[in-house]
């Protein structure tokens, strides 16, 4: 299956970004992918799928698979607390996927001048989960490539 990983014009025009954190690192997701943010609730386990897929949840009658971003980044899951959130993303207009994050922070405006490209060294960002790096007065944020993060299968 192929997905459109076209970077569009985000690097030239900037845009709104939802920030969340895992451990102490701040990550961002372009707002256009985001459907809603819900609190962490009971996840129904689906057997025999990779570990980073935690299971499925019921969002108003829709069965939505849930991905653990921690697992995706090679970290161990931590027990959910009241700040643990599920960000529900939508692809291709219908395909919904939720991602579990430690905590959601804020929505910020990424200005074009603050957006830098990721290094291209073969050992850095090898799985290309990071699309851009945003650096502004609030610090450094890693903008994630949602399609890669969510839809690309583990090799």
């Amino acid at each position, binding site marked *: *299956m192929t997905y459109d990983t076209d970077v569009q014009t985000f690097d030239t025009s900037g845009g709104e970004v939802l920030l969340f954190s895992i451990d102490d690192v701040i990550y961002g997701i372009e707002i256009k992918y985001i459907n809603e943010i819900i609190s962490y609730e*009971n996840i*129904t*386990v*689906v*057997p*025999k*799928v*990779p570990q980073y*897929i935690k299971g*499925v*949840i*019921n969002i108003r*009658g*829709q*069965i*939505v*698979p849930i991905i653990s971003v921690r697992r995706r980044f090679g970290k161990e899951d931590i027990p959910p607390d009241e700040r643990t959130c599920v960000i529900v993303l939508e692809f291709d207009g219908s*395909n*919904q*996927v939720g991602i579990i994050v430690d905590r959601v922070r804020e929505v910020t405006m990424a200005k074009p001048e603050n957006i830098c490209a990721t290094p291209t060294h073969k050992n850095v960002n090898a799985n290309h989960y990071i699309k851009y790096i945003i650096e502004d007065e609030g610090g450094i944020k890693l903008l994630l490539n949602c399609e890669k993060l*969510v*839809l690309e*299968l583990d090799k």
Partner: protein
Amino acid sequence: MAKFESGMESMVDTYIFETTSLLEQLDQILIKTESESTFGEDEINEIFRIMHTIKGSSAMMGLENMSHLAHAVEDMFYIIREDKPDISDTRTLYDLVFTASDLLKAEIDIVQDEDTPPTDFSEHMRRIRDYAAVLKGVVSAPAPAAEKPAVAAPADAGEMVEVLTSGGAGYTALVTFEDDAVMLNLRALIVVNNIMEKCSSISYEPADIENNSDTADFIAKNGFRITYTPVESSGAEEITEIIRSTTFVKNVTTEQLLAVKSVPAASLTTVKVMFEPDCKMENLRAMMVINNIRDDCEMLAYYPEDIESDQATAQIIKTDGFIIRFRASIPNEEIYRIIGETPSVRSVDEINHEIHADTAEERPEMAEGQSPAAVPAAEAAEPARTGAQPVQQHQSSKKHGEKKQSLISVNLSKLDQLLNMVGEIVIAEAMVTSNPDLKGLKLDNFQKAARQLRKLNSEMQDIVMSIRMVPISGAFNKMTRIVRDMKVKLGKEVDLVFEGAETEVDKSIIDSLNDPLMHMVRNSMDHGIEETAADRIAAGKSPVGKITLSAYSSSGEVVIIVADDGAGMDPQKLLTKAERNGILTKPRSEYTDKEALNLVMLPGFSTNEKVTEYSGRGVGMDVVKQNIEKLGGTVSVDSKLGQGTSFIIKIPLSLSIVDGMEVSVGRSIFTIPINYIKESFKLKPNQLLTDTDGHDMIMIRGECFPLIRLYELYELEGAQQDLYEGIIILAEADGKSACLLADGLIGEQQVVIKPFSPLLNNFGVKQNGMSGCSILGDGSITIILDVSNIITDM
């Protein structure tokens, strides 16, 4: 730019639906006649009618290119029907018609796409006309009409003659002049003089134009009406053209006269046909009625007349009915029956014979050039005058009315909505009846009412499902065409055999089955069946290959098998190939034959050395697999080297709702469709056996079944591992049985299957025996197990 005439948009659906079914009908006829190598009169007539209808409706929609192409084919069959030429080159004929049918189908597909310009069919039309000219030449070499089939318009006129009369060829032309023209009587005279030599007879009104200048005013007001019969060498078109080119002539309306002049009016039967109130395109439906009865009538006239070209007549027919006068060569009752059976006809009322005494005078007048509008006026008055007949009229109307109204066509999306709604109701019902708030309460009356509700809901479900069921034969029949085309191209002799084509499947499944079936049939034709008949004979098989499409339903599933009796596949070859393409995921030696066969359904696998027009690009079977999985089904391959290959598709019969038994395993809840469960029980020590490899088996009434521990299968923690504490469920699928170990039974419930998201499908949840999820009454999710997959994959 919209392709349709304005105001036609609302009819697009109807038009597409009707034209598509007509084209399918056409294919069926062609394939049948081709295989029987006979071309009966009925078939020719049928093709002629199909093309005629397509021509008419396309023209009405403003789709000129389609209309013209249909017209060309119609012309060709007109020649075949009328002249009955000895067709020696049937191959060309079939190719021409099949291609025309394909072109029309392709055009229908893009007809709603405003960006795509209408396709130019002139090349194919030229070929058809060339061939038609050849046909024509076969029967009447020196005929003056040799060029006739190449010209669209005259053919129309010829047809009209046939429709209306068995003799006589009179026309009436209503001529109007420019507003600023003077001395209209003299201008009219010029017109008459101009066409005089082209007409064998001519009369006009007013008659005394030459010496009465008062007629000028009359002409200015009412127009000038000429009634003429063209000489044999010229047609009405030519004369109309002459009139039109005369100075100061503004407009000419030419109508063909009804040649009823010589017919005693009383010998004609008059009927009024009413159509279903919402059927639309009444004029074309009226045309269909006329087409249907045309051959059985010696004499035929109808009002409104220009139904084919003037869509405004639809409104007249809708309000006043469609009036047909005829003298039939078969009993009138037969004609009523034929009319009554035409789609969308609501009623056929005979208008009493006796009233022809009244209208008898009107007929000759009409023939002399009165406006045909006199007829409906008279007819409209008739029912009032024919008090003697109302009973019969009423009855016949009622009879047809009942018959026709028992069938309606419904937009599929509405049925989809209905089905979704029923699914939601089932969930809502569960939310109410197994509401946690009710736990521990003793509610006898509530339970009684809940049972009643459940019963009604399940009946409603059955009805909704049955509405959506259609026989699979529709999908199968489409394959005949593909096989036919490929037979010709590949030079292979193959019989296509259907089994169980009457099996009923959900409509949405049928629609999504077309593509996968087509891929598989192509595969079987191209790769399955041996290259040459000699190969087959050498293998000890009949030289004619056989592809079997079969369907049957078994325990909530429809099984569709595409089987060929060709060379079969060699698992070792497949493995070698897969290895070379780098798509093996484990060491080659670990693949079973079955797994090796299923490699053909992986993306990027193609065993055929060369890419052909039909298959070999390695995209076929994985697309099939994806499409079937979208429907919640599975595909598997079975092949015996030298004996043939079968593709087995299994699709849940009802797309969405199953009766399930909920079982718990650890913290998970699974639903097992109840039709797979034979029994459930607690294990007794004397039932347990262990084989030499340590596998457990369970003995039930003298039969031995393998044991599958669900917690082990799905690697679940916290589950009951003690065989004697858990519950054993004996399940059967596809003739195989096995015992499943679960922690406990929760209860029986109807669940609505929701498909897994594409993300999960990527990880092969289907292959691991999970067919979908469902939402339970408390909002939690249960995973529905695909028992047949679990059992057969052991």
